């Protein structure tokens, strides 16, 4: 018996990263804008997404959503009320989505017939941070009913996000939400991160959000004369 050391230097999640890269390429080629939503449980992801789907559909956009939960397809049924295709990933206790499962749940969908695809992650501010899903934009949601220092407690997910959305701002006064403190927390863990403040129920801030979604769309290819 002899021993030896094998040098590797490889990302432990390389398989997920590779699958995410494949998805990202597919999304780009199909021209679909993919936005993922992460937050703690109860921050209002599903309501925010349902209103978003309704608004986009109403404006003539082609949209679909995938939603992850530990158990139940309740959220998929809620989102389907928006009248768009929705699929549920039940993770059976696993605390995050992985690129492979997203890929499996896309089967049969013509991505090139979609303008937007939303991926609602499992309610969790820790584990989803490690898993790239091939999304173009990762939005992290924080409701006014949570602590203003939540970004300081979960810096990794806020640092990995492309956008922060403060939700339920209609309740801000009732819960004495310290807006300046929340914004400072976000700025501390991710300087320069764009922040939106919304109330999905009241519609506050939704116009700005929809405008931002419009800006995420690829620019229309300029008409090129025949070569």
């Amino acid at each position, binding site marked *: *018996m*002899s*021993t*030896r*050391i*094998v*040098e*590797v*230097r*490889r*990302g*432990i*999640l*390389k*398989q*997920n990263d590779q699958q995410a890269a494949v998805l990202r390429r597919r999304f780009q080629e199909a021209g679909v804008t993919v936005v993922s939503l992460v937050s703690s449980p109860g921050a209002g992801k599903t309501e925010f997404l349902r209103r978003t789907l309704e608004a986009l559909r109403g404006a003539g956009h082609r949209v679909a959503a995938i939603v992850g939960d530990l158990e139940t397809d309740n959220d998929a049924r809620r989102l389907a009320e928006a009248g768009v295709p929705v699929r549920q990933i039940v993770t059976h206790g*696993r*605390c*995050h989505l992985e690129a492979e499962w997203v890929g499996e749940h896309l089967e049969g969908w013509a991505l090139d017939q979609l303008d937007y695809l939303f991926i609602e992650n499992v309610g969790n501010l*820790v*584990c989803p*941070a*490690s898993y790239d899903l091939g999304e173009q934009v990762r939005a992290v949601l924080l409701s006014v009913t949570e602590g203003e220092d939540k970004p*300081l407690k979960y*810096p*990794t*997910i806020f*640092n*990995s996000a492309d956008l922060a959305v403060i939700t339920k701002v209609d309740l801000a006064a009732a819960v004495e939400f310290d807006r300046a403190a929340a914004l400072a927390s976000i*700025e*501390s*863990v*991710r*300087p*320069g*991160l764009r922040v939106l403040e919304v109330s999905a129920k009241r519609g506050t801030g939704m116009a700005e959000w929809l405008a931002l979604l419009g800006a995420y769309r690829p620019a229309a290819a300029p008409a090129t004369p025949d070569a």
Partner: protein
Amino acid sequence: MHELSIVNALVAMVEEKARAAGATRVTRVQIRVGALSGVVADALRSSYDFGTTGTLLEGSTLAIEEVPVAIACLACGRDVVLPGIQHFCCPDCGTPSARVTQGRELDLLSFEIETPDPEPSIEPGADP
């Protein structure tokens, strides 16, 4: 807690390479965990024994090299290491920076294996 998922991914990666190297057993695994990887070193350690049971890695030691976050400070013109992950500003001059240059690592570095004694004609440790 997704550390068991991470351990499972680690085990799959090491087992595949260890088998290819002719290992009968893996005795030590060395990984690097960045402060911004989303993985907690202590939680990995406590998932490790369970996640390696019944695999080539059973009974092996997990060595974790923890890496702090570094950001590029444009004002100082260099990378600076942060004492934590709550404040992404230069500890020297206070300038904020979102440009992370280190700390997202979650890497398998190396592992140690036991193999049957090599044929006498092969130099120990020599790579083909």
